[in-house]
């Protein structure tokens, strides 16, 4: 077996590694800067720091001190999780993995000089830059809505205060009122996400406000796990949920945040809560860094390296890579391939073939869990699906319960894989 430089480096990074660094790596350790401490970024930072055992200097830039996961934020809306249980901090990444965690916004990337500017005035130089900034919304995709309306009509598609706001609005809805969701067009983060949210809102309303209605305005003719969701809605929430697809006007929707109206194909309707999930694009910093092509940032599947810049990698929702859905699981999976490739480029650790996988669980009602998943490989053209599976309609209650319990195991697994 080939000897590997990293075997010579002390496992307890810090001082030992810093002392041995000049001998092994020349003047200074290679620098990796990661922008975004979410599913993609936190995982990439942790794996590079963990596996390079101090040989690479890793900085993670993330404005928030507590990252609230979008995954399971719907379960919070349904009353299955408390808010604190979906919040995570960066203490372990900083202390146990010696990652420099910088709580700030990256505002500019000078890719010629390989330098990132921060909102607080600082700057960071890099050998490799990893961008995992998640999503931003496409201006004007829902006429009448922009970011200044997000307190009246929340998107709750970045978790945190938006999620709490939506939850409070649902709690305060008048008896028999209407919760309306303006669903996003493809591609968007978490394909089953809006429909799991509808299930969780229905679960809550069934108990607290049983005569309330749910209205989905959907620009897409079909959606992820549709048969499974509709089976569950008929079973658990019969008569409560109405979905208007593109053929009936779901594609030409305008909103009026001040009067809490939605205009569907010209006819106006009053609603009580309006959850607008606009069209999405890569987080703005990807565009600023010059790695986007249209709304998303194209990448080379074998390494998640940008097709536009050799020293930048893009992970997760912001990337356009092929067949993988935009999910936390996918971002986490891509981060490990990226971490392996970045280490191989900066040290002489081995380069292995890229393997990706994804599974997305959704909760329809208490102990009624469903899932969809697939494995993927890197081809020169795209990340391509190898094989997959999906839950079936008519499964027995025990299997659905086991599926839900698995999702709890996964949540603990992925969050410890991200944050240590």
């Amino acid at each position, binding site marked *: 077996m080939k000897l590997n430089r990293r075997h010579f480096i002390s496992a307890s990074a810090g001082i030992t590694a810093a002392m041995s660094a000049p001998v092994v790596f020349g003047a200074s350790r290679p620098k990796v800067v990661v922008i975004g401490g979410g599913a993609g970024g936190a995982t990439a930072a942790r794996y590079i720091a963990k596996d390079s055992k101090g040989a690479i200097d890793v900085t993670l830039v993330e404005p928030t001190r507590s990252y609230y996961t979008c995954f399971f934020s719907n379960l919070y809306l349904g009353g299955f999780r408390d808010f604190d249980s979906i919040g995570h901090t960066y203490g372990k990444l900083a202390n146990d993995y010696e990652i420099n965690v910088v709580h700030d916004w990256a505002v500019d990337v000078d890719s010629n000089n390989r330098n990132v500017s921060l909102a607080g005035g600082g700057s960071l130089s890099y050998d490799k830059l990893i961008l995992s900034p998640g999503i931003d919304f496409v201006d004007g995709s829902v006429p009448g809505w922009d970011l200044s309306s997000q307190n009246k009509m929340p998107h709750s598609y970045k978790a945190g205060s938006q999620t709490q706001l939506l939850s409070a609005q649902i709690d305060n809805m008048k008896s028999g009122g209407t919760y309306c969701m303006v669903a996003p067009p493809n591609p968007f983060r978490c394909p089953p996400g809006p429909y799991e949210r509808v299930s969780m809102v229905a679960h809550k309303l069934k108990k607290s406000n049983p005569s309330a209605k749910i209205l989905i305005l959907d620009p897409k003719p079909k959606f992820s796990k549709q048969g499974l969701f509709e089976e569950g809605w008929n079973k658990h929430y019969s008569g409560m949920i109405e979905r208007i697809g593109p053929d009936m006007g779901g594609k030409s929707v305008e909103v009026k945040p001040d009067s809490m109206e939605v205009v569907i194909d010209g006819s106006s309707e009053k609603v009580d809560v309006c959850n607008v999930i606009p069209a999405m694009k890569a987080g703005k910093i990807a565009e600023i860094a010059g790695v986007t092509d249209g709304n998303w940032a194209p990448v080379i599947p074998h390494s998640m390296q940008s097709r536009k810049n050799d020293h930048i990698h893009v992970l997760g929702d912001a990337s356009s890579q092929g067949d993988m859905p935009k999910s936390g699981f996918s971002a986490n999976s891509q981060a490990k391939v990226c971490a392996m490739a970045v280490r191989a480029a900066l040290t002489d650790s081995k380069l292995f073939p890229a*393997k990706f996988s994804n599974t997305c669980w959704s909760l329809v009602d208490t102990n009624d869990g469903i899932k969809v998943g697939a494995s993927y490989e890197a081809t020169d053209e795209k990340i391509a699906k190898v094989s*997959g599976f999906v839950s079936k309609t008519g499964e027995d209650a025990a299997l659905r319960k086991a599926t839900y319990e698995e999702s709890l*195991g996964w949540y*603990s*697994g992925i969050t410890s*894989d991200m944050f240590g």
Partner: protein
Amino acid sequence: MRLFTVLFALMLVASIFLNVGLHNVSATEIVGGEKIFKKCKTCHQIGAGAKNRVGPHLNEIGGRVVGSVENFKYSNSLLELKEQAIRWEKPMLDKYLKEPRKFIQGTNMNFSGITDELERKKIIEFIWQVSESTQGSSVQENSLPEEILSIAGDRDYGEYLSSECATCHQASGKDEGIPSITNWPVKSFIIALHAYKNGNRKHPIMEMITKRLSNEEIASLAIFFNSINN
């Protein structure tokens, strides 16, 4: 060494007679037992078609000679008890489940034990009941050819491959809804992955994951997960 085990076995038998004994438990307590058995399920199967996993199947455990399931690789500690024809009875199992590695030193059962006495009672009643209803129904693990079991894996490659698993199976070995896969005997691990790969064990995720793993990749994962210490 031998003397020690004989002494130990005597102490073990003595301790059984000193035990106050378990009272008869009600049906609801048995129902509770099935739930608690989840703690064992990571490693043991019971009931019709039960196979050896990390641990031996537990069918007909009531009165079964310790360490006697064929084709299961027991620790020497259990094999020495087998030689003395010691059988599993409720009070002895109660002690084993309370503190496995204290009660039978050198056992491979990598399980921290159940401190709650009632929980132990429930679980034992459950096992006993299922055990009686499954006389003769256990089957042997589909055995793999020795050349697959003895492939030498590459630990570094295993470490990289393991990153795919860590999204669900925690590197710390914690089980919060998805079984722990750290510190397994290498061969049991290989057998478990091939069971999914061959479709002998059904689970959509694990079948998908293993379908594209080569025999060498499975061997590499087995050594890596065996080597994590937690």
